[in-house]
């Protein structure tokens, strides 16, 4: 479908916005573009090697253990799941109320596989696993760009994703890079209407992180935005879409079954969030309260910064909406607002863990002069080095 409309000389704001609408190819065209694109594997490997080498150098210079640093915080929970499985009862952290139920099983299962059942060093293998998953994810990202944004500079995307602020999470024993891979795979196959594959990817997505469940909701948003009320009738004629709708969250339900068997509480993954001080509230209240710290207590940087990042996320969601990228907008919206309802902690990580935010940022960069865009990517890479240094110092606001 091509939503583009040429703006006339006396165009209204609505018409000007329509000129920003993105072109979405029909599945046959999407498939042809996906097959035609030449993925810059050399640049992907180069970007990963260069950036990770710099991070390693910083670790050595600061007398830190690179591998240990990459396996800290959530990484230690994943390692625990890999070696001991899921807890039967809560006993972790200072209040004795934490358990590993909040961490979804696919990444630790992969970690178990690549360490040959725990025989190899989990920190080394975990770092290699996360980077390998990211390399594949970047390849898929280039393919998705070729489908949905033909002519977009792939190298800019590769270097942006490999080096931007907070990108060190992709090297850590965190599930971010796996999530990227699965999310981009499901987006590509949805555009190509290979619905059987979409079922598989979305099932694995919801087995990776709770936010994976939102994929099928975002799919529903796109269908309603495109087909209006016909979308519901179409579900009867396209039962494969209906099956995506129930298979997509199946990974979560399988995890719930496991938790019910272990703890007696199928919702333990959600209930245990209280151990991290997370309670469901109003996302807008949390956002406004966080932003108010700039005025009331600017020295309390953490909530103010995280709320500001959330505000950037809101802007990127709006940008995706203006481009009528409904599926991407839905994914970004749910990924930001649901965690925001429980608090401001880790908001930047939630954002970088969802590739559509980076695609939206990339869309903006491609509208700038080439040198300026690359300059901003460089600036982001430098800012990331400061975050990396803080990560090595185990500052808690980077958890």
């Amino acid at each position, binding site marked *: *479908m091509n939503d583009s409309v040429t703006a006339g000389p006396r165009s209204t704001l609505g018409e000007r916005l329509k000129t920003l609408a993105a072109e979405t190819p*029909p*599945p*046959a065209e999407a498939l042809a573009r996906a097959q035609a694109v030449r993925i810059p594997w050399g640049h992907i490997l180069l970007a990963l090697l260069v950036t990770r080498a710099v991070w390693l150098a910083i670790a050595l210079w600061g007398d830190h253990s690179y591998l240990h640093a990459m396996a800290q915080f959530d990484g230690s929970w994943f390692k625990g799941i890999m070696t001991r499985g899921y807890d039967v*009862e*809560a006993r972790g952290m200072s*209040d*004795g*109320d934490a358990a590993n139920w909040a961490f979804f099983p696919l990444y630790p299962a992969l970690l178990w596989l690549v360490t040959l059942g725990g025989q190899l060093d989990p920190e080394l293998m975990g770092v290699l696993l996360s980077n390998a998953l990211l390399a594949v994810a970047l390849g898929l990202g280039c393919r998705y760009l070729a489908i949905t944004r033909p002519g977009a500079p792939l190298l800019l995307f590769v270097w942006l994703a490999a080096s931007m602020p907070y990108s060190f999470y992709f090297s850590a024993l965190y599930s971010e890079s796996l999530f990227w891979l699965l999310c981009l795979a499901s987006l590509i196959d949805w555009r190509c*209407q*290979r*619905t*059987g594959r979409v079922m598989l990817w979305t099932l694995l997505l919801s087995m990776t992180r709770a936010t994976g469940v939102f994929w099928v909701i975002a799919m529903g948003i796109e269908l309603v935005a*495109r*087909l209006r009320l016909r979308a519901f009738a*179409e579900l009867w*004629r*396209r*039962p*494969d879409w*209906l*099956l995506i*709708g*129930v*298979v997509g*969250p*199946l990974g979560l*339900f399988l995890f*719930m*079954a496991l938790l*019910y068997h272990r*703890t*007696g*509480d*199928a*919702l*333990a993954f959600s*209930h*245990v969030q*209280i151990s991290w*001080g997370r*309670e469901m*509230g*109003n996302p807008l*209240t949390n956002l406004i309260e966080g932003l108010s710290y700039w005025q009331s207590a600017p020295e309390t940087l953490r909530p103010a910064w995280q709320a500001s990042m959330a505000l950037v996320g809101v802007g990127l969601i709006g940008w995706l909406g203006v481009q009528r990228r409904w599926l991407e907008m839905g994914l970004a919206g749910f990924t930001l607002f649901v965690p925001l309802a429980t608090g401001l902690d880790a908001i930047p990580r939630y954002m970088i863990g969802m590739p559509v935010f980076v695609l939206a940022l990339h869309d903006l960069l491609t509208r700038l002069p080439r040198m300026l865009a690359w300059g901003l990517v460089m600036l982001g890479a430098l800012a990331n080095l400061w975050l990396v240094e803080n990560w090595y110092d185990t500052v808690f606001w980077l958890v």
Partner: protein
Amino acid sequence: MTPSSGSSDALYGAPRPRRSQRVWWLLATVVVLAFELTLLWLARTPRVDDHYRRYFIEHATTCYRPMGEVPVLTPGERYPIRKGEPLGNCGVLWAGFYSPQPDVPVSARLAEVTLRLRVAPEVSPAGSQAVVVALELSRFPDSAAALPVEVMIGEQTVTRWPVGGRYERFEVEVPAALIASDGSFSLTLKGPPPIAPRDAGLDANKFPVGLRLDALTLRSPLGLTPARAQP
């Protein structure tokens, strides 16, 4: 999806499945959906103990299980009741109080809440002398009319307070007979049923709030509060 003889969709272009294929898709959908609905039903009926239910599901208490030492209280010292403070630990607050953040007052999420306290040996040597406990209390919502709160030491009711305003100070004398030989005693408040801010029309918070306990001070019945005591 396997291409078939169905007509193409205008926007998504993919051929629709044949009627026979559609039956299998729908059957698979029903099976998966039945599994998911079963899990949802199981999620509504968790098989967990009372500690788990009150802490993780109902958010009715501050701590999962009682942990840590009950600190010895110094007369005249004003102890804020906050998470992270000596009287905010899980050894003291686990029964019914709730305070998710260090800077938020402790609230009663149950109608009946209990503090576990301990006095210094010189205040009540071997439980031989009474002590006075002063509590700074509010009741949610702030505009609520005063309602009686029953004060119990151990199992014995010792007084009733009309609590309705904000940061009101109440005192109760703990008889020496109710103080254990190690100086410990428990103070229970039985108040009106807590109400959720959502039900009070204030905000979306669905977890009930009753009494709010801001601080606690201890003194001897003679009123000989040391000079360093804070109001």
